């Protein structure tokens, strides 16, 4: 080996090391940029809202304008009621639709259903508010918890439908065949073998859909409308955490601003907890399933 080629080799080696370092740094910085927004949001919420998150916040109704203090208990409970109403519509339709797509259905119909679901998943959420306003609020002449729940439920359907379909398609065909070969009816095979095998994935999809609609504000603006008091009937307007945050944040009062921060902190923490639950559920991913 001559001196020249040895030097060339050395240069080459050096340059390769530099490229490696550059690429590592770039990926590390990108990873930081991914985490940074979450960190910033949490930090900001903690600084501005933590002082206002106290016992009163969870047990008191809002105080009349001009009076300091009070809480958002009605909005927290209202949000839970709306999520429950949305689940009644969104979970059965979404899950059964997903099962149909994965287990029954003809290729052409399925293609159309999938396409429609994907388009619906991309529809801006305020559109659902407008649609439900036209269909329900105008017809029954009033804002109501039902209307809010319906708007949220309609958002849930395509989300759950697609995740359910995907996890059911992941169940190996061998399990279906094994059950059918035992003389088990098709629907029993689907319910007791296929859906049971995919249950973690289905529940994960449902939780993610709940986390998604839990923070929706726009579809509630002219359906649930919001309420400063307890909701005594589901056919009456109802408070929801995101709505209350919106109302308080655009108000001119400092005390309301603080409460809006507190509400945002509670909402983000709740959604964060749901996501952690999803992580725990999907952690034990066994060889087979989802």
């Amino acid at each position, binding site marked *: 080996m001559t001196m020249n080629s040895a030097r060339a080799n050395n240069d080459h080696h050096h340059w390769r090391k530099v490229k490696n370092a550059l690429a590592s740094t770039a990926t590390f910085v990108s990873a930081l940029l991914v985490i940074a927004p979450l960190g910033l949001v949490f930090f900001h919420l903690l600084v501005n809202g933590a002082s206002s998150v106290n016992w009163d916040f969870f047990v008191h109704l809002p105080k009349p304008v001009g009076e300091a203090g009070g809480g958002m208990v009605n909005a927290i409970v209202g949000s839970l009621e709306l999520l429950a109403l949305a689940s009644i519509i969104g979970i059965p339709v979404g899950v059964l639709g997903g099962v149909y797509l994965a287990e029954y259905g003809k290729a052409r119909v399925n293609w159309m259903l999938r396409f429609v679901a994907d388009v619906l998943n991309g529809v801006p959420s305020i559109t659902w508010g407008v649609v439900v306003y036209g269909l329900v609020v105008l017809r029954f002449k009033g804002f109501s918890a039902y209307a809010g729940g319906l708007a949220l439920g309609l958002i849930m359907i395509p989300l759950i439908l697609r995740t359910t379909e995907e996890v059911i398609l992941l169940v190996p065909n061998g*399990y279906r*065949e*094994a059950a059918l*070969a*035992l*003389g088990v009816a098709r629907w029993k095979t689907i319910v*007791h073998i296929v859906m049971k095998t995919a249950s973690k994935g289905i529940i994960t999809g449902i939780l993610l859909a709940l986390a998604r609609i839990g923070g929706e504000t726009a579809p509630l603006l002219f359906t649930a409308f919001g309420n400063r008091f307890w909701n005594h009937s589901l056919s009456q307007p109802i408070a929801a955490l995101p709505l209350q945050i919106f109302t308080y944040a655009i108000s001119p009062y400092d005390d309301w601003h603080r409460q809006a921060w507190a509400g945002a902190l509670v909402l983000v923490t709740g959604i964060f907890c749901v996501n952690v639950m999803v992580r725990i559920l999907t952690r034990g991913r066994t060889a087979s399933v989802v």
Partner: protein
Amino acid sequence: MANPHPTVAERVERPAERPSTAEPAPPLTFEVKNLSIWYGEKRAISDVTLDVASNAVTAIIGPSGCGKSTFIRCLNRMHELVPKTRIEGSVLLQGQDLYSITVDPAIVRRRVGMVFQKSNPFPTMSIGENVVIGLRLNGVRDQKFLNERLEKSLRMAALWDEVKDDLHKPGTSLSGGQQQRLCIARALAVQPEVLLMDEPCSALDPIATAKIEELISDYTAFFYLGKLIEFGPTTKIFTNPSERQTEDYITGRFG
């Protein structure tokens, strides 16, 4: 058969009908007549006529892609799960046409069990649940009866002694060979009249496979390119085949 659709419970009550082997002509389990099967345009099985004797082991041999799996899947109507399949000819199970429109495929599959090439215990279930799930989903609730079937099936599959203290453990925690025996126990638990096994020796080397086929089976059918080439007593097929193609395959001079 008197009642064409006996429930599992009824069949379980009734002592197994085991015709005496002393009868002059051996009783037939399957009578396959002029069976042809198409996947779409492709003809997978051509005009197979074959009688399968009761209380005997019949092996089906042949190179891969010759229609062995397709053929046995027609014997319990499992091939219907593949879209665009078409069938011609008839299959009689103890004299009853399996493809008659009044016959429910689920009932056929209860009478004709199947074990697959790849072991597939249900991952969400324990060893014990895996064995009795067929009975459970077919409506058997009697816990005492289920426990009896559980032990008996595992004993028949030669797995009882290895798992009797671990029945609550997941079926997937067993080794590969144990999982396959668990699948056999699961198929036996519903007390099928016939057990179909798709490539039961696939994990063995070809020489061991040939030995087992020769040792265990009473009758052997040789398939090639979707056609039944030769069928007869195993000793004859393996030692003195009538067809040239059979001899080439058996002696390993094939293709």
